[in-house]
């Protein structure tokens, strides 16, 4: 059952989406990620082919598309999480504020410090709520207890979790509900004050109410962070994002392998009201996918 407040929040969300459709102007903020002909490999297998796009500052960019189209793979290349997988490789040009992310002298840990990530499944550490948030700042050299306390409170407030957990900061994070755990993971990510937050289907394991909370949170965080979100939920992309990229998988008849390609990238309003490509239209209208 929805409470009245939650119902109102849903209505507001929908109205925002509708309003956006009637006014498709999205500000041309500075470019954070510049991708040119990016290809991503797992060993010899090419998972993503020829992606060129620009992701803009302080906006929410959504990656949508059917399963296996390389959305998550591409997202993971943006903060070098792709490196963690043995045999993984990236070619093409992938720039972050004009700096080549895959240059030889670029350290993956330095990249990830600036570009945080929230995963599909809430993955709090088996530690206390406090220690979960303090982990990142500690890794980055914050030692004083007072500073850590301040960061923990600020991050939990920003993730709209403070009031729920302020009395049990020393309790295990594993005792929280799924939605709380995911907000904890968001709080943990913004505790290191990143520039960008990458979200890999952050709501797929959550119920609609928890999802609404996270979406609300994303809209708030947008004023301070650039957000890139992978989602299977088209309504979610329409509700929260400024720009949407539609990916699909192409079957290579010779190798019988699926490779992800970027079909269309535009403002969310344009993608959902008047897509240029037929494949996009088929997907968003539910005729394919």
């Amino acid at each position, binding site marked *: 059952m929805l409470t009245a407040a939650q119902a109102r929040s849903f209505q507001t969300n929908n109205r925002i989406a509708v309003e956006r459709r009637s006014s498709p102007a999205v500000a041309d903020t500075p470019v954070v990620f510049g991708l040119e002909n990016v290809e991503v490999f797992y060993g010899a297998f090419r998972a993503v082919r020829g992606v060129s796009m620009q992701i803009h500052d302080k906006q929410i960019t959504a990656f949508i598309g059917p399963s296996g189209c390389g959305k998550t793979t591409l997202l993971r290349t943006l903060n070098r*999480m792709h490196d963690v997988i043995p045999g993984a490789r990236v070619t093409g040009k992938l720039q972050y504020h004009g700096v080549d992310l895959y240059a030889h002298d670029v350290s993956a*840990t330095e990249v*990830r410090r600036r570009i945080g990530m929230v*995963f599909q499944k809430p993955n709090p*550490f088996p530690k206390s709520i406090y220690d979960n948030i303090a982990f990142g700042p500690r890794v980055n050299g914050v030692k004083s207890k007072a500073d850590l306390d301040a960061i923990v409170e600020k991050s939990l407030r920003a993730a709209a979790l403070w009031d729920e957990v302020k009395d049990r900061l020393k309790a295990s994070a594993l005792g929280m509900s799924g939605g709380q755990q995911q907000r904890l993971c968001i709080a943990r990510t913004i505790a290191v004050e990143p520039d960008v937050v990458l979200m890999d289907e952050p709501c797929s394991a959550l119920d609609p109410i928890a999802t609404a909370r996270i979406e609300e949170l994303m809209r708030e965080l947008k004023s301070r962070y650039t957000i890139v979100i992978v989602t299977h939920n088209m309504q979610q992309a329409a509700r929260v994002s400024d720009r949407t990229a539609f990916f699909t998988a192409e079957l290579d008849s010779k190798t019988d392998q699926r490779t992800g390609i970027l079909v269309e990238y535009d403002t969310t309003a344009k993608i959902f009201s008047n897509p240029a490509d037929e494949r996009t239209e088929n997907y968003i209208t539910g005729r394919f996918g």
Partner: protein
Amino acid sequence: MKDLDLRAKPSWRSTKSALMSGLMLLAVLVVAIPLVAVLWSVIDRGAGVAMKDFPAFFTNEIPLVSRRAGPGMGPAILGTLLVTGGATLLAVPLGILGAVYLHEYGGTGAFAKAVRFMATVMTGVPSIVMGLFVYIMWTMRFGYSAFGGSLALACLMLPVVIGSTEQMLRLVPNHLREASYALGATKSRTIVTIVLPAALPGIVSGCLLAIARAAGETAPLLFAVGAATAFNPSLFDEANTALSVQIFGNATSSFVAAQDRAWGAAFTLVTLTFLVTLTARVITARFALKR
């Protein structure tokens, strides 16, 4: 009219089921007989000896003349603690570091595979071969000492510690490592602050089981430790002794007094091992609750 007689009907299938259940129960009982018999005879014949004039048996020296009746296994208890403790200090840190390398760094590389294979082979090496190895490499040069025994037991424990630790590291979900990397933590930092703490209870109980097993080893100690009868608190100097060695020596003696002391030593050793195993079980249970 529908057939609503839902009661089980006698059939060959149900007879077979009952027969097989009976056979399994029988097998369990047959397996339990030697276990219970060993435990019973050790308690029956050892507890009385060990508990007589408590704590004389645990604190007195071993009678030099073995036909003389009377208590005394103190030096052997101290020796067992020294030898096993030394072995633990050698095998546990090395084993854990080795397992961390194998699982977190080596992965499926050729070197890691080779090391893992050799560790598996080492698990199957008879303990007397380890004793011989240590006798040749250490005891022939430096003489009898508790440390020689520690070396031999460490060789036996090492593959067990490596195996169980790697198993525990494998249980740490990968998404925890990813979460740590995504916050800008380095690999070493992730291992020390996330992976090892998450696996710690399992690693501890694995190590305790290895220790409990090593504490009862006899063959390698015969070569390396000697069979002193007086207290020797030194790890490195002079011959020492251990409970298992004393059990062997006294039980093969022809004097009843010595045989009694062997039973008492056996009781002491079983109790020690039981305590270590119990600790391991308690920690494992806690670990299971946390998951």
